[in-house]
């Protein structure tokens, strides 16, 4: 094809020459026809086909038209025609070729310009920048690049917008500013450059950077202004975002600093080589140093002189090893007081594991140290107490294995802990006590109930002594038993005393009987004093009546009679008291219980009045006789009465009433009940025990004596108590053997 397209102009040249020959022959005007053919070939095909047509035309002209015709040879005359013809044709081809070359170069330039413009437009589009040109003396633009329209939000157009259209794109103040800058640039012939907001078209705030500079002519006058407009909205936004980010970083740094200064601990940091770099506010406040002083090695000055070498040495070793560590040392407060601190340092490493910094805190542990000290002190105290108390203390694990005994146990047993541990202690018990002790202990271990037992424990010299043993489990917060704590109390002396006490109780009870009689006597003193007082007064009266002037014999006589009567009364009282004091051996005679009750009531009458006690009786007539000792039975009743009276001492809301009943008891003889309306008995079982008393001044013997009297008479004594509603004491006595009613 390429060949064809190259050949084609030549073909066309040949054809046009042929045509020229055919037209010229009949017309005989060869010059102009061949001239035309050469021109056509040159214009169409260029230099090559043009010269080819020149050749062909020259041959055809020579052959057909110049004489000699139909010969190639030329004569001189013909040559004069032929020469200009050939030259003119060559000139035409040359001219046409020159014209073609110029045209070609022009086309190439135009294409290049077009390409450059396309590149520029693309660049402007990408950079969102447009270019413009304006007249020299006003903002009236003469040229807008395509991108300008896009940036300004206007539809593309060939014509740049008018001044009014332009002004409408900016907010008034921005436009004012722009025109002002333009004016200044125009006057000073300088470049202007400014950022201007655009009126928002689609709701987004946009900003343009507009740059313009004057183009000066040869004489220095302004020809025009050319410039660019760049949409810097995104750039601005990016910058704002960046600024915000910086701000944020700054703020968070401030916050961090604030936190570091506020955290309730002393914090610091040091460089990778261990040199102090930073101390937080609290650190500085505590020590009273300035930041500069502290960093300058001042921190060493606030460490206690006794601790500083140790601390610095430790710190150096930490820095050398690169390991975190801690240490306790005293640090001086601003007011000169040293407090204990825990110094902790930790290396900060970068991604590659290199230490870039050391951070640390100093924690105030003064209170903890003090508490620890106090605890140690207490522990020492406690252990001294445990070793010093005159008791044997032991401790066992939850499963019962002996883990500790105090020195006293070791001294007592003459053995060491090994000998006692692993149930070795059982070997020290009295053989008779082993079985109950072990049973109790195992029971306690199983149930967790306190262990309490008494056993005989062998002393180093082989003597067994009685011990009261107590064990108490200690529990953790969840209630599991963790340990057993126990105590051995030497009760050997007490045990012996109890034994001795039992032996002497009988004797004591007899002694106390006398003491009670003393009390009895005091109570009946009134009974004696009353008639005695009457006797004395009557005696005086009698004397006075006799010595009166004249003597009043009748009155004296009456007085004397009363002396006799009251004297007898007194004698009777004394006789009864003597009967009480007569300490005959148990004299078993047949007695009427009602008589004895009546007698005792008579003797206690004034005591009852004095204590505001009302006595009610319900005595069954015709009771069978009982066998007994009158004095002892009187005492029995007397004690029960006094007991009842005493029991009602605190009664204020109801009459103090004492109720006495006697009745026959089938098979048993006689039953006597003495009821009071006091508060009743809290511990009825204990009432008859010797020395048990609820009274402030009581000996605690009264009821114990009653029991021994009743038992000596082969009777029974018991209590019936409804709590809060008084107590009733009952006794029965067997009837006299010979009476059988």
């Amino acid at each position, binding site marked *: 094809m390429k060949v064809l397209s190259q050949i084609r102009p030549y073909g066309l040249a040949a054809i046009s020459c042929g045509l020229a020959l055919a037209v010229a022959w009949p017309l005989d005007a060869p010059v102009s026809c061949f001239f035309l053919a050469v021109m056509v070939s040159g214009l169409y095909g260029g230099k090559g086909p043009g010269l080819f047509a020149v050749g062909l035309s020259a041959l055809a002209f020579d052959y057909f038209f110049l004489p000699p015709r139909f010969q190639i040879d030329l004569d001189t005359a013909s040559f004069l025609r032929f020469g200009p013809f050939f030259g003119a044709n060559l000139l035409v081809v040359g001219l046409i070729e020159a014209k073609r070359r110029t045209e070609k170069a022009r086309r190439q330039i135009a294409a290049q310009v077009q390409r450059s413009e396309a590149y520029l437009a693309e660049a402007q589009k990408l950079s969102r920048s447009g270019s413009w040109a304006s007249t020299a003396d006003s903002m009236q633009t003469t040229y807008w690049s395509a991108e300008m329209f896009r940036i300004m939000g206007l539809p593309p157009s060939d014509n740049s917008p008018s001044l009014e259209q332009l002004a409408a794109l900016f907010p008034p103040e921005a436009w004012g500013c722009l025109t002002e800058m333009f004016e200044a640039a125009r006057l000073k012939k300088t470049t202007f450059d400014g950022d201007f907001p655009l009126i928002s078209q689609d709701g987004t705030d946009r900003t343009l950077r507009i740059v313009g500079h004057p183009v000066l002519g040869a004489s220095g006058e302004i020809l025009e202004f050319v410039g660019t407009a760049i949409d810097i909205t995104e750039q601005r936004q990016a910058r704002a975002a960046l600024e915000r980010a910086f701000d944020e970083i700054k703020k968070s740094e401030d916050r961090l600093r604030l936190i570091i200064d506020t955290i309730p601990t002393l914090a610091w940091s040091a460089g990778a080589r261990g040199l102090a770099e930073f101390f937080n506010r609290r650190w500085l406040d505590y020590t009273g140093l300035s930041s500069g002083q502290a960093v300058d090695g001042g921190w060493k000055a606030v460490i206690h002189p006794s601790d500083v070498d140790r601390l610095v040495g430790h710190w150096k070793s930490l820095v050398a090893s690169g390991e975190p560590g801690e240490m306790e040392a005293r640090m001086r407060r601003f007011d000169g007081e040293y407090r204990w601190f825990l110094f902790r340092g930790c290396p900060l490493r970068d991604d590659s594991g290199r230490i870039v910094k050391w951070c640390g805190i100093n924690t105030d542990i003064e209170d903890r140290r003090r508490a620890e000290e106090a605890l140690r002190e207490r522990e020492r105290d406690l252990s001294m107490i445990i070793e010093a108390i005159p008791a044997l203390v032991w401790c066992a694990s939850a499963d019962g294995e002996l883990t500790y005994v105090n020195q006293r146990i070791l001294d007592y047993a003459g053995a060491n802990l090994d000998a006692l541990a692993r149930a070795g202690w059982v070997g020290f018990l009295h053989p008779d006590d082993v079985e109950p002790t072990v049973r109790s202990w195992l029971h306690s271990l199983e149930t967790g109930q306190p262990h309490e037992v008494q056993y005989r424990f062998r002393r180093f010299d082989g003597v067994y002594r009685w011990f009261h043993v107590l064990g108490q489990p200690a529990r953790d917060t969840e209630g599991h038993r963790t340990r057993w704590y126990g105590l051995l109390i030497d009760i050997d002396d007490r045990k012996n005393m109890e034994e001795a006490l039992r032996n002497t109780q009988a004797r004591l009870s007899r002694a106390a009987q006398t003491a009670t009689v003393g009390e009895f006597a005091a109570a009946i003193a009134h009974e004696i*004093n*009353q008639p005695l007082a009457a006797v004395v*007064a009557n005696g005086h009266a009698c004397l006075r009546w006799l010595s009166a002037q004249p003597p009043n014999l009748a009155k004296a006589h009456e007085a004397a009679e009363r002396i006799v009567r009251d004297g007898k009364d007194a004698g009777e009282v004394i006789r009864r008291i003597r009967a009480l004091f007569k300490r005959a051996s148990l004299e078993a005679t047949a007695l009427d219980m009602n008589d004895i009750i009546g007698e005792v009531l008579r003797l206690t009458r004034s005591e009852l009045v004095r204590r505001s006690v009302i006595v009610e009786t319900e005595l069954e007539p015709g009771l069978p006789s009982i066998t007994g000792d009158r004095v002892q039975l009187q005492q029995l009743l007397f004690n029960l009465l006094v007991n009842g009276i005493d029991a009602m001492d605190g009664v204020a809301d109801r009459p103090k009433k004492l109720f006495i009943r006697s009745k026959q008891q089938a098979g048993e003889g006689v039953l006597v009940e003495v009821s009071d309306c006091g508060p009743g008995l809290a511990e009825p079982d204990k009432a008859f025990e010797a020395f048990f008393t609820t009274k402030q001044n009581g000996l605690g013997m009264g009821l114990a004596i009653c029991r021994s009297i009743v038992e000596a008479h082969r009777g029974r004594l018991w209590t019936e108590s409804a709590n809060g509603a008084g107590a009733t004491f009952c006794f029965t006595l067997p009837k006299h053997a010979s009476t059988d009613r």
Partner: protein
Amino acid sequence: MTPGNVTPDNPIVFLVDDDPRVREALCSLISSVGFRVAAFGSAAEFLEFEKPDAPSCLVLDLQLPDVNGLELQRELAGREAPPIVFITGHGDIPSSVRAMKAGAIEFLSKPFGERELLQAIDAALAVDRTARQKRSELAELRKSYSLLTPREREVLPFVVAGFANKETAAELGTSEITIGVHRGQIMRKMSARSLAELVRMADKLGIAPSIRPA
């Protein structure tokens, strides 16, 4: 200590004891000296008895069937009651201390001698006479005081405080002459012979003298 010693004001001895034997014997003894005796078996009987207007005293047994002697003493306190001589057959120290602290004349344990009893009765009667005397004097004063007009009662505190009539007049906002008249009336109605006597009377009546302004 004979019937001849008995003063003409005819004093009376009250006796409270629940034991008839003691009651009889003491009645006989006391009346043998010439005193009137009124004997009672209980506190209630004694309280019901219409007492004659004469110096009197009370011989009281500590233990009584109805009211304890100490309780009766407490009840009588501040009632213009006769002074008390306690007698008891079974005295204890706390009771005697309480009785004496509450103003008893004597605390006698039975049996006691006649001398002790009669001396105690004499002492008690003397106390009662003084008390009666004071009471009647005070009654007399109150009667005189009741005769004063309200204005005279106003003036009285100034007079007894030693204010001159002029000062009193200034204080009460009246004339010196008027005060002089009031003063004369007060002296007359109160039967006071001197200012000193009037001051003593005001003191007995419990009238506080006016305080002289500083």
